[in-house]
Structure formats: structure tokens, C-alpha cells
């Protein structure tokens, strides 16, 4: 698997050096095998040769990094008046640890599902009541609900397991 992956990588490198794409549209759509990473000291393996060639091309043309998106300077920072910004009215739950995607709002059925520390809590918005539906052995880092909301997967940020219920 590793040899095959490396071979694909080498072919991609050769192609990018000889025939750099003219635009984003010219980039191939063929999926390839994830090569097993061999970490080097430069740590620049995340940047593919293809991306590098595009970056060098922009630099040679003295174009900004957005030049492939816009030929004009339309995009400018705008100061927004304070009264046009949204402000938080309530904070429901606080993890205190690194957690992402740890809030789900079901607007049609009127409940929130969120985490705090090692607990998964459902809040019924009409009654303002909270129910702990799951307690893990370590802090919950994230969770996911299936589309039909019948399956729940809970992930832990520390060495542990993923649990589906």
C-alpha cells in the first residue's frame, strides 16, 4: 500500500513540475491513496507539490493569493457598526476543555443537546429542564447525531473510545 501510494505521489510531482495547471479548473479529480506520511524535519509535507506550483506561479506573476478568485480588489475589510452585530443572550453549557461541534439545536422539536465536561445534556426549551443523557469517563470532545436522530456517537478527547448509542 505504501509503495503504491508513493508511486502515485511521485507521478503527481512529475506532472506538476512539467505541466502546471492553468487554473483551478484544470486540476484532476482522480482520487488517490493516502500515502503513509514519512515525517521530515522541514515539516512541510502538508503542502502538495501541486499547491506549491500554484503558489510559485502566483508569486512569479506578482499576484495576490486571491488572484485566482478575483481580478479586482473588491474585497475590503468593512467596519460594522456595533448595533448591527449579534450579541449572545444566553450561554448554555460550557465545556472548559477543547471541544468542537458539541451543540445541536433541534428547532422543530424544541430541544438542545450539548456537552459540558464529561456529560451530554438535553435541554427542553419549552420547560427549560435539563436531563443528563450520557456520562462518560473522561471529557467529551465532540458528538454526532444521525440524520434520523436515532443514533448518537460520542467522542472523547483523551485516550478512550468512541461510543455509539
Amino acid at each position, binding site marked *: 500500500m505504501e509503495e503504491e501510494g508513493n508511486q502515485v505521489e511521485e507521478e503527481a510531482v512529475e506532472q506538476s513540475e512539467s505541466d502546471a495547471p492553468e487554473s483551478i479548473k484544470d486540476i484532476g479529480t482522480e482520487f488517490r491513496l493516502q500515502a503513509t506520511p514519512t515525517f521530515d524535519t522541514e515539516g512541510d509535507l502538508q*503542502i502538495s507539490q501541486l499547491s506549491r506550483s500554484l503558489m510559485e506561479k502566483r508569486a512569479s506573476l506578482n499576484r495576490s493569493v486571491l488572484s485566482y478568485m478575483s481580478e479586482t480588489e473588491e474585497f475590503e475589510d468593512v467596519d460594522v457598526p456595533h448595533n448591527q452585530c449579534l450579541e449572545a443572550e444566553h450561554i448554555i453549557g460550557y465545556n472548559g476543555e477543547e471541544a468542537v461541534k458539541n451543540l445541536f439545536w433541534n428547532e422543530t422539536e424544541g430541544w438542545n443537546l450539548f456537552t459540558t465536561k464529561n456529560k451530554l445534556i438535553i435541554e427542553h426549551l419549552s420547560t427549560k429542564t435539563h436531563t443528563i443523557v450520557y456520562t462518560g469517563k473522561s471529557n467529551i470532545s465532540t458528538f454526532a447525531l444521525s*440524520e434520523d436522530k436515532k443514533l448518537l456517537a460520542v467522542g472523547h478527547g483523551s485516550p478512550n473510545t468512541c461510543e455509539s448509542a
Partner: protein
Amino acid sequence: MIDEVNRLSCHAKGISLLAFSHNSKQLVSVGTEDEPLIVVWDVEQGSVVTSTINTGSVNDISILSNPDELIFATVGNQSFKMWKIDPETMEDLLYLDIPLVDNESNLTAIASINSMPAPYNCSILLLGDSEGGIVVYTPESNEFIAKINKVVQGSIGLI
């Protein structure tokens, strides 16, 4: 109220992201930066379908709507990838590394919209970055079609 179906053990250093496939038969889990493992699980069997070590960070994941196969996209620091299981071997996880318009982008979030009305008439992926910008990408033609620079009062420009 909740019955545990399976306890899935594969990530030795924790999980950072989870996503169910649209048919709920598969679950994708992403490991932490210390162990950048991406795993596709069979939910019913509680077994690993396939896994791979990712190069680079993953800040968010989105499942693409596709009735035939599981395809998902991940974003991270200078990284935007599409993933799918090799239809031939059904064991390997293949990826498509999509070069970014702004190579310095730290992509922080991704969301998919299955069908956009005219003038787009296609499914799109919205990629958010740490600078507050949003890039619009369509997997159907594999191109970036717009960028909103800053979420507030941003303008959209078509290529």
C-alpha cells in the same frame, strides 16, 4: 432513554470529530493532532471499514450527499481534502487533495448544501477560514466559484 449499541475502540489518543453518513450505516471519526487517524466504521457491526493516517490537521468534516457511496470532505490548516472508500478494494481510503486558492488559509469549518438554486444549480461546499472569509466550492465541477471576504457585509464574486 439511550441504549449503548457499540463501544468503538481504535483511537489511542482521542477523537476530535465525528460524522454519520446520510444513511446512518457508517460513522467517520477523526483523531487528534497527536494521532491524525481517520477511521470509517460500520455502525451496525461496530467494526472498522477502513482507516488511514492523515497528513496535516483536520478542523472540520462534512459528509457529501451521495446515495451510491460515502464521500466526505475535511478542512484544516492549508488543507482541503475529499475522501472516499476505494470502490475496487473496499478497504483503502482514497483522498483528493484540492489545492487552495489561498495557500496560507487556515480552514476552520465546512458545510455542504445539497442543491443550490440558479445561477449555481449544483451542490456546494462552504469553507470558512480563520480570517472570517468563506470560499464556495462545487465538487461537481471541482472548482471554486465564489469567495465571501469576511462574513459581515461581504460581497460575492463569481469567477
